[in-house]
């Protein structure tokens, strides 16, 4: 007889896990959505967006970087955690320039989908309106830093999956920014290919394939069909070209 997989409880629902798995890995396999932006199943956690915060007893922990343990009672829902998630999302919106009506990613954007699901109706905080560049130098890929949320997924995908070093995070605090690994700092001078995972993994509209923006019309996109919590985790931000 094989021993039953160990379990933890997520809002009272038993979630089986394999030794060494994080809370979010096990929950995702069990079909339970924990909101997240900087986590991706293929990569080590980054722990930066804090959207995946859950409560265990009196403590709050990031589900993407907390190992599952048998018998843990993990809370995801509840008014205090929901309010905190809304605040985190609102801060991400006001820190960048997110004008969804003119964004090619609208309707297929994880930030937007999580915010809609969390019930974020407005930004609440003062808009920063930062002055950030758009880099259109690459023939096939557009980089619009106005929408970058510094999740670091493109950095990890480029280094660990594509075997390149196209992106890095530089600076500190509010000055943190995504930098491009070429002498000129321009995307067109890197070896990034449109088929690289780094060019497709962005959860928001910061890295976009050119000439495909409206191939799927607004209103028929991934999160138009169903809320993000009801959909399976995607491998990539965008399908390969």
């Amino acid at each position, binding site marked *: 007889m094989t021993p039953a997989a160990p379990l933890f409880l997520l809002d009272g629902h038993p979630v089986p896990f394999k030794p060494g798995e994080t809370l979010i890995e096990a929950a995702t396999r069990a079909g339970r959505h924990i909101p997240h932006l900087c986590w991706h199943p293929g990569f080590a956690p980054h722990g930066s967006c804090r959207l995946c915060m859950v409560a265990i007893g009196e403590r709050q922990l990031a589900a993407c970087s907390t190992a599952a343990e048998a018998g843990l009672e993990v809370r995801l829902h509840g008014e205090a955690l929901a309010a905190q998630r809304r605040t985190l999302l609102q801060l991400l919106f006001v820190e960048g320039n997110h*004008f969804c*009506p003119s964004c090619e990613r609208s309707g297929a954007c994880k930030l937007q989908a999580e915010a809609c699901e969390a019930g974020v109706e*407005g*930004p609440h905080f003062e808009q920063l*309106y930062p002055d950030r560049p758009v880099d259109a130098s690459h023939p096939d890929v557009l980089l619009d830093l106005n929408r970058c949320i510094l999740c670091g997924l493109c950095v990890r995908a480029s280094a660990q999956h594509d075997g390149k070093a196209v992106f890095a995070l530089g600076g500190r605090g509010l000055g943190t920014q995504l930098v491009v690994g070429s002498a000129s700092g321009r995307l067109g001078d890197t070896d990034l290919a449109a088929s690289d995972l780094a060019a497709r993994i962005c959860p928001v509209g910061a890295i976009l394939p050119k000439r495909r923006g409206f191939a799927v019309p607004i209103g028929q996109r991934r999160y138009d069909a169903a809320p993000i919590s009801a959909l399976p985790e995607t491998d990539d931000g965008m399908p390969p070209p």
Partner: protein
Amino acid sequence: MNAAPPPAPRKLRLATVSLAGCFGCHMSFLDIDERLFALIERVEFDRSPLTDLKAVGRCDIGLVEGGLCNAENVQVLREFRAHCKTLVAVGACAINGGLPAQRNHLRIDELLRAVYQQRDGLAAGAQVPDDPELPLPLNRVHPIHEVVHIDYSLPGCPPSADAFWQFLTDLMAGRTPQLGHGLMHYD
């Protein structure tokens, strides 16, 4: 004893305005179509492009489309706040500045010169208009919650007619408006 029939409930007074917006939210509001008949059973319009009244009176609900791009927008918004019990930011521009706010990383004086003095095809000696009747532009476009307290936001660019209807029926029934998936949109 013949009791007089109870008086019909007082109609709610509703004001609407478009500040730095494109009137798209108002057009979408009108898209509730025949539901407008049900609406006017319950509300009376105060200041609104639909009545053409120029001053806002005491209202229960104020719907504000558009953000703040000039001094007159700020004045009108403050009058709405002072007169409306419940003030609603309607649409992307009221909520986060929207498309007009995409000028915010540019200098306003350079923008005005580029449009009125440096474009191709302008008459010789063209000047930036400075008629005293023209409201002064603000350096940056602001969402309305940065200037007055907002009770609710109705997102969308524009919010769909169904979103307007859901929002208003909830509000008229005294419930906190809940849009839910499908009606909650930022685009």
